[in-house]
């Protein structure tokens, strides 16, 4: 792991280099790039040019016809994606997007301005696919494709979290996330991926989830969490797995099953489902909500996502319920039905508790757990005791993907305010559609990238610190599995007194269950407000 400077020593330098940006040479400084995909993972994922290599090497062992592969890849994608074609042509370099990217704000590296990130690809496009670029070269903004350009692409396309913040501000809606996605597709044609993504993709393909959890281990883990719930509440929940004929198939990121603090969120789901008597099942085959294929290529996204509908069909469920996750929900909302639908073998989702029909999911047949819960609360189906969360002064982080790839703002706030008494928003320029990324999205939440993650997370952390200082906020909630893990690291670094919670963990805390024993601790085993004394007595 690269050495991470202390927050006070992290240099922020916005001076621009003397050399113009067309010079492609990149300094691969540790902490700012991710390890190369290992040969075995590329192979297992079915990706080309599997070999041992490192970005720090001078020879990247590209296939001998790499230039041709890139140009053909670009041509194919220009013909397939109108987005790419338009975004290659219409940027006016107004600079409105420049200071909107968290990686630029946190690093001062001009090539992290969305406009230049796109120009890295655009300059090659101009040189090869436009007349002006062919004739006038650099005067028309064109560059020659060299190995250095490929290295630069690798560095900067794996330094973009595909958060789409830039695209909100661009007067033409140019979405650098889309350019990054396609840029990564091109890199993958040469076997250039990062291991954190390729490894997760390989795992997901073979075991059904990113973490490579095998079926028995998945079941054990959920049952372990059921034990924990019993210890806290005295209620025994009974999750089922791969059960045919269940009404609902529930899919959430595997991080919720295996990584703290996601596990507490999972406990919240389990408690809620039990209390509502939901006829649902987990699947060990489709045990991943997230989709690291999305960070590789459109094709890989489709391949990994296919398991959801396939499993729903095999088990004969009526509809799908999805857990708290960011990029999973961009995939579900904007891609799933197109890629793997039509899901005409499923029914339009209907809450078995309230009878609400989810028209907004009429075609995909997949409902967001926070929508589901918001509907329950609205219809008075949950008995809640928000005072149990009174030790938390809460704020809420909008995930990039649910915000700018969906528009999911009110439901989570409604649920949080129903289960927490103390809630304060961060400044308006840092939430909702303008939300700042955790700095670790799109498959970049690995250890070796740590310095850049802390830099990229700076604007988010700053906004949290603002409400911490002003309102005494000590808790940050979110609806994303990567956030739960990444924001925890980020808070430890920048705002150490703030703890990260999933929304359904808070629901689990506040939920008054039938037949529960008096609760003295929250789902983490920490004393509930007012119970600290009784804990002490026990000691």
């Amino acid at each position, binding site marked *: 792991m690269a050495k991470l400077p202390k927050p006070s020593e992290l240099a922020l330098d*916005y001076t*621009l280099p003397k050399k113009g940006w067309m010079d492609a040479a990149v300094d691969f400084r540790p902490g700012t790039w991710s390890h190369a995909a290992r040969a075995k993972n590329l192979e297992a994922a*079915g990706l080309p040019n599997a070999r041992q290599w490192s970005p720090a090497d001078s020879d990247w062992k590209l296939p001998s016809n790499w230039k041709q592969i890139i140009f053909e890849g670009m041509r194919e994608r*220009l*013909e397939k994606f*109108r*987005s790419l*074609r*338009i975004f290659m*042509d*219409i*940027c*006016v*370099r107004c*600079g*409105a997007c420049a*200071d909107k990217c968290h990686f630029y704000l946190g690093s001062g590296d*001009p090539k992290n301005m969305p406009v230049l990130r796109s120009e890295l690809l655009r300059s090659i496009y101009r040189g090869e696919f436009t007349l002006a670029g062919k004739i006038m070269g650099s*005067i028309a*903004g064109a560059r020659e494709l060299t190995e250095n350009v490929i290295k630069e692409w690798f560095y900067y396309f794996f330094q973009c979290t595909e958060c*789409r913040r830039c*695209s*909100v*501000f661009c*007067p*033409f809606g140019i979405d650098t996330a*889309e350019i990054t996605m396609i840029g990564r597709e091109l890199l993958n044609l040469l076997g250039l991926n990062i291991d954190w993504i390729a490894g997760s993709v390989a795992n997901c393909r*073979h075991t059904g989830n990113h973490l490579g959890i095998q*079926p*028995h281990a998945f*079941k054990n883990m959920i049952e372990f969490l059921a034990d924990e719930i019993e210890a806290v509440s005295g209620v025994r929940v009974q999750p089922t797995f791969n059960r045919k004929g269940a009404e609902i198939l529930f899919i959430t990121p595997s991080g919720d099953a295996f990584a703290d603090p996601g596990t507490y969120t999972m406990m919240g789901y389990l408690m809620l489902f039990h209390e509502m008597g939901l006829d649902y099942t987990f699947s060990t*085959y489709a045990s991943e909500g997230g989709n690291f294929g999305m960070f590789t290529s459109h094709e890989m996204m489709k*391949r990994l996502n*296919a*398991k959801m509908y*396939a499993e729903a069909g095999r088990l004969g469920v009526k509809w799908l319920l999805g857990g708290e996750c960011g990029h999973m929900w961009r995939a*579900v*909302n*904007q891609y799933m*039905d*197109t*890629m793997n639908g*039509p899901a005409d073998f499923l029914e339009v989702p209907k809450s078995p508790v309230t009878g609400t029909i989810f028209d*907004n*999911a*009429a*075609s995909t047949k*997949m409902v967001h757990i926070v929508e589901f819960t*918001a509907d329950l609360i609205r219809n008075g189906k949950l008995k809640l005791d928000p005072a149990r969360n009174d030790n938390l002064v809460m704020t809420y982080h909008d995930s990039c993907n649910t915000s*700018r*790839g*969906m*528009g999911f703002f*009110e439901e989570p706030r*409604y649920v949080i305010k129903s289960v927490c008494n103390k809630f304060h928003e961060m400044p308006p*320029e840092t939430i909702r*559609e303008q939300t700042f990324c955790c700095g670790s999205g799109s498959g970049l939440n690995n250890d070796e990238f740590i310095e850049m993650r802390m830099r990229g997370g700076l*604007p988010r952390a*700053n*906004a949290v610190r603002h409400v911490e200082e002003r309102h005494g906020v000590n808790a940050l909630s979110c609806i994303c599995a990567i956030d739960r893990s990444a924001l925890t690291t980020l808070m430890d670094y920048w705002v150490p007194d703030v703890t990260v919670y999933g929304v359904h963990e808070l629901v689990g805390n506040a939920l008054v269950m039938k037949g529960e024993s008096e609760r003295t601790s929250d789902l983490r085993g920490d004393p509930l407000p007012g119970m600290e004394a009784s804990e002490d007595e026990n000691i």
Partner: protein
Amino acid sequence: MNFIMSLVAVLALVLTAFLGIEAAGLRTFFSMAVPYVAFTLFIAGTVYRVLAWASSPVPFRIPTTAGQQKTFPWIKRNRFDNPANKKEVLGRMILEVLLFRSLFRNTKAEIEKGPKLYYQWEKWLWVGGLALHYSFLVILLRHLRFFTEPVPFFVQALGGMDSFLQVGLPGIYISDSVFMLAVIYLLVRRLIIPTVRYISLPGDYFPLILMLAIGVTGILTRYFTRVDLLKVKQLALGLAKFQSSAPEQVGTIFYIHLLLVCTLIAYFPFSKLMHAGGIFLSPTRNLPNDSRIRRHVNPWDYPVEVQTYAEYEERFREKMIEAGLPVAKEIAAGGPAVYPLTKK
């Protein structure tokens, strides 16, 4: 450097027209051939570009959502920033095209020691952009009076309104002043904001300097060198009707103005100025966020290799049975089959 290059290019154009008329007397060439060629390039180029864009399909529905989506009736949704149907998309597009909605969101980030970030009010780019586009539009419409006989009522009215404020010179057009100020602002901004200067290409300076020169020569024609406007009108009408002769005794400054305008027209489709057309086709803006409600079809969709449940169970059957997980096929005598991974 990029700025100088563009400046030189525009000056070269000015010089070309000047010498062409003064020294070579190529009046017919500059008043007839150049406009026709420019116009042809404009039409052909624009059609080509738009067709090229339109020929690529929109495989996925990827609007950038900037407001609450449509869910429950009791949750207030944002129809314009997160449209759920075509009608609402139209609203979003009108706001984008006519009012530059997205640019209006602009803020400026400032960082202080700590580090502490601030986001400041920054609407000048929006103001400058709007000013430039609308004044350009008014000027364009005003010029219709050269191409029409009788001059349509709205063109006359526009001219009247435009010269309503009489600042200094009699009948000075507001649109001219706004246009010049906006172009100068955008140019200066490009030169003095370090990041914007860093990203600027020759193709970013050139149109601005060109427009500046067009503005200056246009104003000169009108107020200072007293170009015979009747002659100009004859020429314009003739051009529009494809029957014209090069007028004599029209000042050289007019020919310079004309050449610069023709350059802008011809340059338009081959440059970033095509953003004017691209915005209409931008998939992050012109699609409703309704892909959970209605299925969007990808015309080039193709089947992909997926690990099936059967393959999965084949691999883990033993462990699944041990863990009490249901399996479709019990283990046959002789132990589990080898996991057959289908290679692509």
